[in-house]
């Protein structure tokens, strides 16, 4: 049997094991999922090792010109392992500080130049049509929904103002439609995967039976 046939038969068995979840949680489903987690984690380690750690950390250690810049991340990387032990986990704080600091700065840059400015520009560009007006109103109303500033009423309850409450309710309508479209998109992806799995099972059975 060729590699492809063996691979297809294993794939068929695992597909049936996962689909067995439809009759309830059972050992076959769990076995398939645990096997999947094991192999996927091992593959992730392989990719990290060969694509990140070897070229960026281990190879430069043999290069005297880059050695100085590699010693710091090497020490920080080793200190990060201290996070596994509660007693010495503080030692990993420096490495975490670099990850969080750089991550926060990258997130700020990405949010500004990747989302905020382009989205605001796109909202301004489309404002020359009736669609643009609906888009702008929808954007503002959606944002109004997330305005949670409130005042204490005389009866000691905390409420938003009547105007912002109305705007937020209208914003919820836009959010409901948006989430509906997103849900439908996810459902279409899932349906495509289901059709692909079923057709692969049918094709494999046909080829094994010589039909």
């Amino acid at each position: 049997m060729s590699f492809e046939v063996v691979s297809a038969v294993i794939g068929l068995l695992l597909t049936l094991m996962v689909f067995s979840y439809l009759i309830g949680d059972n050992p076959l489903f769990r076995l398939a999922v645990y096997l999947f987690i094991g192999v996927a984690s091992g593959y992730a380690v392989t990719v990290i090792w060969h694509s990140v750690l070897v070229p960026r950390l281990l190879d430069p250690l043999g290069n005297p010109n880059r050695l100085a810049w590699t010693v710091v991340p090497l020490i920080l990387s080793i200190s990060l392992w201290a996070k596994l032990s509660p007693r010495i986990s503080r030692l990993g704080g420096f490495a975490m500080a670099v990850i969080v600091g750089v991550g926060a700065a990258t997130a700020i840059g990405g949010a500004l130049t990747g989302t905020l400015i382009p989205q605001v520009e796109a909202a301004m560009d489309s404002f020359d049509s009736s669609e643009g007006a609906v888009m702008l109103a929808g954007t503002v109303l959606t944002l109004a929904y997330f305005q949670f500033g409130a005042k204490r009423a005389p009866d000691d309850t905390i409420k938003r103002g009547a105007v912002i409450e109305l705007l937020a309710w209208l914003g919820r309508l836009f959010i409901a439609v948006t989430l509906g479209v997103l849900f439908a998109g996810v459902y279409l992806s899932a349906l495509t995967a289901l059709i692909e799995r079923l057709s692969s099972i049918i094709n494999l059975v046909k080829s094994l039976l010589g039909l």
Partner: protein
Amino acid sequence: MRILVTVLAIASGVTVLAGYFLAGAVPVLDQARFILTDWAVILAGMAALIGVANLVFVHIEKVRSQPGTSLYSAVLIIALFGTTLYGVIAGPEDSFLNFAVTAIVIPVEASLLALLAVTLVYACIRLARRRADVMSVIFLVTIVLFLLAVMPTPIGPIPVLDRLILGMTGVVSGAGARGLLIGVALGTLLTGLRVLLGIDRPYGGN
């Protein structure tokens, strides 16, 4: 030590942010940004390895404490060690490793996604039965109309209706998505600034 950790986080963040926006005026900041980002990538890779190591420790402990009922954990550990050892020696391009991915990872991933097609329908039915308010109705009607417009029907595409539905849902959902995106970006901006100002210290500085 906590102060040193906080200072390191703020300094590395501010340097990267300054390098991001002032690269043209001060070229050395751009170089510093590249070096710090490179370090962060290495550390993130190492953090992922530590996450996998923690997964292994948890399941080894399960095998040790419940020897009779920990078959699944044993399967996970064996699969993980086998794939890791072979992958680290042979490399991610190796044909046998790709065979393992094609035979195990892709079918299980695709099957889990396919299961979602059933569970999502079930979730919709539960929503309609348990919380039939205005928002739920709008949500469910949008799903049905959108699917009607984009999916093939037994009578072929519905000529005017599909364009009308796609146009309406496109404008409304586009507006909502833009609002959500701007909201997420504002939230990210605020969270990032809180970290850079030392107000939030998720790295263990309290």
